[in-house]
């Protein structure tokens, strides 16, 4: 495009010269104005963040586990998520070390700060060997896995199934300690939430002794 036609496009008569000073001011004004408009987006986007009410809803919950018999599971709600408390039988505990080679992270070494508190970094992923406390949310896409405690062949599971959990969404499997099997969509073990025993039968979920 030639100089003359460009000028006429911008409404400047052909042959007239461009007032550089005026143009610089126009550009500056547009940039400053644009920055102002962009800054206006901040409060709008910020409203998408969790509200103060949502943040406050994360208090710890106290659970009485005296009624849970070996081989049973109870579910309690903490921060809107299901937390499972499973009393494992001695037979189930004995199976755990045997399936280590089939697991993606048998020693709970991945993301230990997020997934496994120090007191649960053991073969059973628990404080007391028989009592497992995990958040029942699959580390893949947030579904809640189903109980498949019964060992042996069954639909969607291998024939040598040792008992554990199956995620109905994408087929990830977890053992009785919430450890994920290899080559499954879920990358990590189930999260062990911070928890502590207030007494032998009372459990506090959401807080531990460190805090």
């Amino acid at each position, binding site marked *: 495009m030639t100089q003359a036609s460009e000028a006429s496009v911008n409404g400047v008569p052909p042959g007239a010269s461009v007032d550089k000073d005026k143009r610089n001011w126009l550009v500056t004004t547009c940039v400053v104005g644009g920055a102002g408009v962009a800054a206006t987006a901040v409060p709008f*986007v910020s409203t998408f*963040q*969790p509200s103060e009410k949502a943040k406050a809803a994360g208090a710890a919950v106290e659970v009485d586990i005296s009624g849970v018999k070996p081989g049973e599971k109870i579910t309690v709600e903490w921060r*809107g*998520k299901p937390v499972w408390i499973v009393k494992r039988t001695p037979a189930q505990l004995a199976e755990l070390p045997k399936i280590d080679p089939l697991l993606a992270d048998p020693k709970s070494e991945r993301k230990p700060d997020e997934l496994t508190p120090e007191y649960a970094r053991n073969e059973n992923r628990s404080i007391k060997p028989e009592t497992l406390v995990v958040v029942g949310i699959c580390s893949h896409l*947030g579904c809640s896995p*189903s109980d498949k405690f019964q060992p042996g062949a069954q639909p969607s599971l291998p024939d040598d199934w040792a008992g554990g959990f199956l995620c*109905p969404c994408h*087929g990830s499997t977890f053992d009785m300690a919430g450890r994920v099997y290899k*080559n499954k969509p879920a990358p990590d073990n189930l999260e062990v939430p911070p928890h502590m025993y207030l007494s032998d039968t009372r459990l506090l979920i959401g807080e531990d002794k460190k805090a």
Partner: protein
Amino acid sequence: MAEFKEISPDAPIAVKAMNWIDNRFPASKLYKEHMSEYYAPKNFNFWYIFGSLAMLVLVIQIVTGIFLTMNYKPDAALAFGSVEYIMRDVPWGWLIRYMHSTGASAFFVVVYLHMFRGLLYGSYRKPRELVWIFGCAIFLCLMAEAFMGYLLPWGQMSYWGAQVIVNLFAAIPFIGPDLALLIRGDYVVGDATLNRFFAFHVIAVPLVLLGLVAAHIIALHEVGSNNPDGVEIKGPNAPKDAAGHPVDGIPFHPYYTVHDIFGVSMFLMIFSAIIFFAPEFGGYFLEYNNFIPADPLKTPAHIAPVWYFTPYYSMLRAITGEMAGALGIIAIVAAVLAARKLSGIFKPAVLVIAIGAALLLGLLPSIANWIGLIAPSAGTGIAHGLDALAKPLAGVPFLGELWGMMIKGIDAKFWGVVVMGGAVIILFFLPWLDHSPVKSIRYRPDWHKYMYGIFVVNFLVLGYLGVQPPSAIGERVSQLGTLFYFGFFLLMPWWSQMGTFKPVPDRVVFHAH
């Protein structure tokens, strides 16, 4: 501004009124440009009904949607009940609701067929690239509408479907978890999520959608409609009558408006039959689990998206760690082939990018796994070696994470998201992927028709697998299907030019009936 037109004071009152308006708003001009003097090719066939039908369904969705909002409550405690209230207590509310829920599925049926028409006859080729791109953007908006609308009844499928899809965003490295939090507005899908999805579903996305529909039609009427022969009826060499109108075109109104009324009648018969006799359509239009109120503590035994999302959902599920590693190898092979044709700096650049991508895809752990299949001890040895390699930088922010990603790959679920998104985004590039010398399938080599046939069957198989619970054989089939889907598009620049093309006639093929 147009010239101010004076007409005789003796003109009939209607003519004078129209003239008054036309001097102030281009009503007659718009009517002529888009209806009475919009010349469309005279050889349209059955496939050309779906554009009009999509407009019809859009109107149905907007009107029924407006009436649903009058009784619906976007509140986690009330939403499920308010939908049941509409179904049971609001006079005729059940009909409005079933029209809306069936309309959602009908929208996708019509739009998929409309898009396939474009694929068959090359309607996305020059100069219709923008028509196609606006159309793809409409498709994206529709998917957003469908996804967010499905949360509103607050049933089990609503809840867990949203939970899964929002968590997909959490798989994006670095920003993912914060992004998912920003979308949900809470740590799990909850009241805040429902409320904002409602706002997006009823106003934000529809506004964008309407704007895109307008752009789609303006662009179409600027370049003119394609036709089953792919012959330009308004091109410089196309025959025209004395008035300059294409002889192979007929005015949209009255010819195609009347023609479309027939198609609309047929469509409405089927649509009504479904609404009245099978509104749930065997659990495919309204899933049975969605008649159970949302329970954040219990995932239903089997969750699957509604049928129109399942082909993409299958592709998402197909990306396991193993498949990601295989994709890494494919990336390297493709780069080596591409590098042979490049020179200078591009040659090593392509290879470096491909190797980087392959590492992020988890090439190294996949190799360890494959070796482990043959020699278990060697496999675990390599895996331990990789762990050791990733360890030294483990605690370092950003750099440590990046290094870890190079050694161990990014989670397969992230790549699942990339593949699912890519499957839709790749459609935008179709105008530049198709290098065939002719537009229409009619003049392409016969094996191109089989190629399209396999593409359709593949898409349907992926859709079927997406409805089914996960299984080992289904996973393998969906992995092959995913490779075919992407191969179809990514290799199109090559295969679309191959074979013997038939001569394209100068004018459209038309037999009067």
